């Protein structure tokens, strides 16, 4: 079905399939440097006040885990659809999705804030919260049946268990196939992709409820999980595009990934920009129309002062600008521009997460603020540190194996892939 003659697939040990040494050697410096930046940023933030520090940490954490989890979804989705086009970029997503395991360790400080403190990050962990804020005791009793530190911890272990199991299952299958070329592995991965995605969706939605939505314990939105998920999948497509571009710049997979793959990644970015908008607006519209105080306060706080400006930034720069900018096929077929838009959207994804979490960072009795220049700097340091740490870990894993699924039965199809 192509005008090209059947392409020749390079042998599995071709140097174009290995992580370029210039990138691989970055892994240890990135891991150490990332941890240092993370520590520095977190330290500065903690000096402002304890909840601010934990909120900054949580922002960085959610940013990174959402990217890893988005990549996990990407891999499972390709298997679910038996997609041919994506085989040449799937290994990149497979490497990043493994990050759910190290991110599980980075979640420990958040568990620690529950077990060794009282409401340092999550207000519901403070036994006096309901009384101090005159919350209805009967409702609060119901809330705390779900929101208590021990059950929260069990659930977090469950989420990380599901994600890690899925990530390892799909990673190991793919790596095994690299060695054996066994087509049955693809069948097995596809067979389990349906149940896997259902488990994934449950874990991801409830993780979003637990970790982000419960920051405002009296607020609830059943759409919140989808909202976080939308940004997560968007950022996954972005980071795949960025990785592909950087790999090709350094000489890897130059013949395998073509402008057609950028075009498709660009389409997904375009689509998920709008999906994110659609979900974010749907969540807003229902609450705005219903106009019930216990639901509106979440948005009300986020329309005041700095948070209101950030909300406008999200409308104009997380939706309108990339929506218009990614609409043309000429842009999506230009790897340099796809790369640029991907970087741009990764930054805006952080703004989105920041806007979700930081308005809940108020100290007891105070108002939430960005913490001024120092507070913003600490947030950026923290997220940059954790992100670089994650990239370092990705590189560490990527350099052990090929950067492409060398014996995937659809590799040839993927290389020859062409859009209409």
């Amino acid at each position, binding site marked *: *079905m192509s005008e090209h003659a059947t392409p020749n697939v390079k042998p599995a040990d071709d140097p174009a399939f290995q992580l370029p040494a210039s990138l691989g050697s970055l892994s240890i410096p990135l891991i150490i440097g990332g941890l240092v930046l993370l520590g520095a940023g977190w330290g500065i933030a903690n000096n402002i006040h304890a909840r601010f520090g934990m909120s900054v940490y949580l922002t960085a954490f959610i940013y990174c885990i959402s990217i890893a989890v988005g990549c996990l979804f990407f891999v499972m989705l390709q298997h679910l659809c038996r997609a041919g086009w994506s085989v040449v970029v799937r290994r990149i997503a497979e490497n990043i999705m493994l990050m759910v395991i190290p991110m599980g360790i980075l979640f420990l400080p958040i568990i620690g804030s529950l077990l060794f403190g009282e409401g340092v990050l999550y207000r519901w962990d403070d036994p006096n919260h309901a009384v101090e804020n005159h919350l209805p005791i009967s409702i609060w009793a119901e809330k705390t049946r779900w929101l208590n530190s021990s059950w929260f911890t069990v659930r977090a272990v469950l989420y990380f268990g599901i994600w890690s199991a899925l990530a390892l299952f799909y990673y190991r299958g793919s790596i095994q196939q690299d060695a054996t070329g066994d087509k049955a592995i693809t069948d097995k991965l596809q067979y389990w992709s349906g149940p896997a995605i259902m488990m994934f969706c449950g874990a991801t939605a409830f993780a979003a409820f637990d970790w982000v939505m419960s920051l405002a314990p009296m607020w609830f939105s059943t759409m919140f999980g989808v909202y976080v998920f939308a940004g997560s999948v968007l950022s996954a497509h972005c980071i795949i595009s960025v990785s592909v571009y950087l790999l090709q710049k350094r000489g890897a997979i130059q013949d395998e990934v073509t402008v057609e793959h950028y075009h498709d990644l660009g389409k997904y970015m375009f689509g998920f920009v709008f999906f994110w908008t659609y979900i974010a*607006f749907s969540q807003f519209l229902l609450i705005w129309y219903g*106009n019930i105080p216990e639901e509106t306060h979440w948005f009300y706080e986020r329309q005041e002062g700095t948070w209101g400006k950030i909300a406008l930034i999200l409308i104009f720069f997380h939706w309108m600008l990339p929506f218009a900018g990614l609409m043309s096929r000429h842009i999506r077929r230009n790897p340099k521009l796809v790369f640029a838009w991907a970087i741009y959207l990764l930054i805006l994804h952080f703004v989105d997460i920041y806007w979700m979490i930081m308005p809940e960072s108020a100290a007891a009795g105070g108002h939430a603020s960005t913490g001024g220049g120092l507070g913003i700097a600490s947030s950026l340091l923290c997220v940059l540190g954790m992100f670089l740490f994650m990239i370092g870990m990705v590189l560490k894993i990527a350099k052990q194996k090929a950067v492409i699924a060398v014996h995937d039965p659809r590799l040839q199809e993927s290389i020859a892939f062409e859009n209409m």
Partner: protein
Amino acid sequence: MSDNNEKKVHGIVAEYESVDSLLNACRRVRDAGYKKTDAYTPFPVHGIDKALGIKPTVLPWIVLGCGLTGTVTALVMQIWMNSIDYPYIISGKPYISLPAFIPVAFELTVLFSSFGAFFGMWALNGLPRFSNPLFTDPRFDRVTDDRFFLYVDASDESYDEKAVREIYEQTGGEHINSVLDDDSSDKIPKPIFMAWGLVIAASVIPLLIVLKMRVTNSDQPRFHIFYDMDFSPAKDAQQGSTLFADGRAMRPDVPGTVARGDSNYDMNFMTGVDMDKLSAIDAPRAERLVRLSNGPIGPQDQDSTPAAEEGEQAANDSDSASGEAAKDTTPWLTSNPLGNSKEVLLQGEKYFGIYCSVCHGMNGGGNGLVNRRAQKILSPTWIPPSSLHQESLYSDQYPDGKLFSTISNGIRKMPGYAAQIKAEDRWAIVAYVRALQLSRNASIDLIPQSQRAEILEMQEAVQQKLLEEAEAEQQTQEAAAQE
């Protein structure tokens, strides 16, 4: 085959067995410089547009244009309908509330975009087209099955039948045929006309039934397609309900709450009395007035409503005022807090027309429809409404605040209107009554210079008309007398 020479040749077509040979032939044809070409395949083939050298379509721009038109249409439509033509508050939102408009804007964007894509594709492809000369090729049917066809149009600038045939032959084309004019009749077959006619005739039947029903009578009850729309289950004002213990469908204000727009705590505005002065001279009455306007009265209070007392008080005041004006010591407001701008007067005119004119008459002379009817049937209990033009009701003897209080609480047979008319509108009525009174006593000096000529002209015309009428009457009387 002999008559082939007489038919017009549209182009030349070749059949290919595989995608690869077709794509190869496409490239050869493209490289030979042919522009008016087309390839036909049973399924979409990647890269065929590149192989044929087809230029990118303008369809995306059409879709973008249509999509933007849809967005703008939806927003303009909603703003016009909901905010300008028929301002209507929904869920307590502003008339123009963008979030509420976005779902419709989104849907219309999608709808217009799809129309743009669908009909734009038709237009660009020259559709609908009922026949194509290619259909005359006996082998062309297999394009829907397992064969691939390449066609070069004879109207191409560089068309050369021999050269095209050569390319076809070299690239493995089989059954290379000239595409001839379709010589079957181009008239639409008669059965189709008949079918159309039947459909059109059938479509008129419902209309005829409707028309017949509109001009004939029937003893059958009316047929309600949407019963709930004809008989809304929502309660009207004053209707009963079995849902509530008190049997009323309308709910009284919850004690201790204030309805939106009712939170006017300016006591002077609500009572028409200068409260500071009143509390200095008659503290208990001031207190009573405050209690009266302070929040709604619960159902249990209704027996001893202070409104009734205040109404009596006002009635007594005005009774005594008609006798000895000096006895009314209430410090009424002497000016209208709304002023008397044109808007206020128009508002007052409206509410005067609705609530006051039935008794007091449109001109305030006291001869409204209710009064005329009462006089006609000689109602024994009827007390004629006051003319608003008596001097004792002018603002120097009957201050604005007192007039406001009378409208609010009633006087003699007239009930209080505080429950029906908002305070602001009652003040507007006061302003309008003052304007009515002034209209009988105004001098031309009060009219702005620019409008005097017009008024004088109108006055002259009226006098002229009255004169003419008088003369005409005189003449008819004289004529009657002569007979």
